[in-house]
């Protein structure tokens, strides 16, 4: 039992965010940029869940491992988890919209290289 759980989760989440950022900066293919965005999204979710962890806490579900009376002292913080459920759905929505725009852009230029789209470049 070396590192605390939330520390490991935070490092994992931030690493995912960095990998996604690097992917967005380095790659010129629109689909790869979208994959980079999804990695950032997932990393942020992991970080948010990690901030809800309380030392020694269990899942906020009343069952054999957690009875009603001890819920307020033994469970992890349920608010970040509830927030992340919303965030996952919104992330999915944004990805779906980006993918359909990518399809339209491919129709217009027959390429997915972002350097081919120079109209809105300054």
């Amino acid at each position, binding site marked *: 039992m070396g590192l*605390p*759980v*939330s*520390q490991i989760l*935070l*490092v994992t989440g*931030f690493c995912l*965010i*960095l990998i996604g*950022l*690097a992917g967005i*900066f*380095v790659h010129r293919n629109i689909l790869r940029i979208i994959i980079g965005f999804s990695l950032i999204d997932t990393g942020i979710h992991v970080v948010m869940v990690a*901030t809800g*962890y*309380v*030392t020694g806490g269990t*899942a*906020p*579900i*009343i*069952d054999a491992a957690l009875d*009603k009376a001890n*819920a*307020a002292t033994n*469970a992890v*913080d*349920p*608010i970040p*988890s*509830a927030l992340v*459920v*919303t965030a*996952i*759905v*919104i992330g999915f*929505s944004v990805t*779906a*919209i980006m*993918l*359909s*725009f990518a*399809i*339209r852009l491919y*129709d217009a230029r027959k390429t997915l290289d972002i350097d081919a789209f120079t109209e809105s470049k300054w």
Partner: protein
Amino acid sequence: MKRLFAIIAVLMFGAIFFGLVGGYSERQTRSPLAEYYLSQVPRELGAPNVVTGILITYRGFDTLGEVAVLFMVAASVGVLLANKSGDNAQVTNAASIDESEPSELVRTGAEVILPLIFLFGAYVIMNGHLSAGGGFQGGAVVASGVMLLMLASSATQLNHGFLSVTESLAGVLYVSIGILGIVFADGFLDSHILPLGTFGTLLSAGAIPLISALLGIKVGAELSVVIDRFRH
């Protein structure tokens, strides 16, 4: 040169994140709001799963907004990809069927697994207030089953009319349950319009299982439509 800037930017973000992780010490206590939710959701709403209780009752209005966002996404993906499936649909469809007929492994596997996936989706939806799960998660499971169906038999056509009627009906019922909450209970989307029942059984926790089921139907139908739009 560009690559150098990218590396510098990523390294700077890395430095910020390193500082955040280094300065973070694991929490030992819960916030007063978290303690309130943890003690009041089982007692007041009768739902063992605290996260579902927060999502569907205390933050029910947010969930309604989330469903609205999903609806807008399904609509705008339809608009963005609409005239693609119009004139050259036959050409691409015929080509894709010729080239990429799924292997027998996928087809037979789908026949065996599909009913189980849909059953599991229904299970996750209906147990949202008892254990990990809920309308959004179960709806996503159902939509993944629809995706497997499309991969296994590329000739499958989804009935968009039926799906949109189902989805709209679920949405209308969801909002009407919310309005019933204003009339018979304490406010919009209050789950106390139905009796709490025995703690920990399938039909308990007021209107939460009903709202979960409606959410599951709505999300499953919407995600299936979104997946189908990307196929052509």
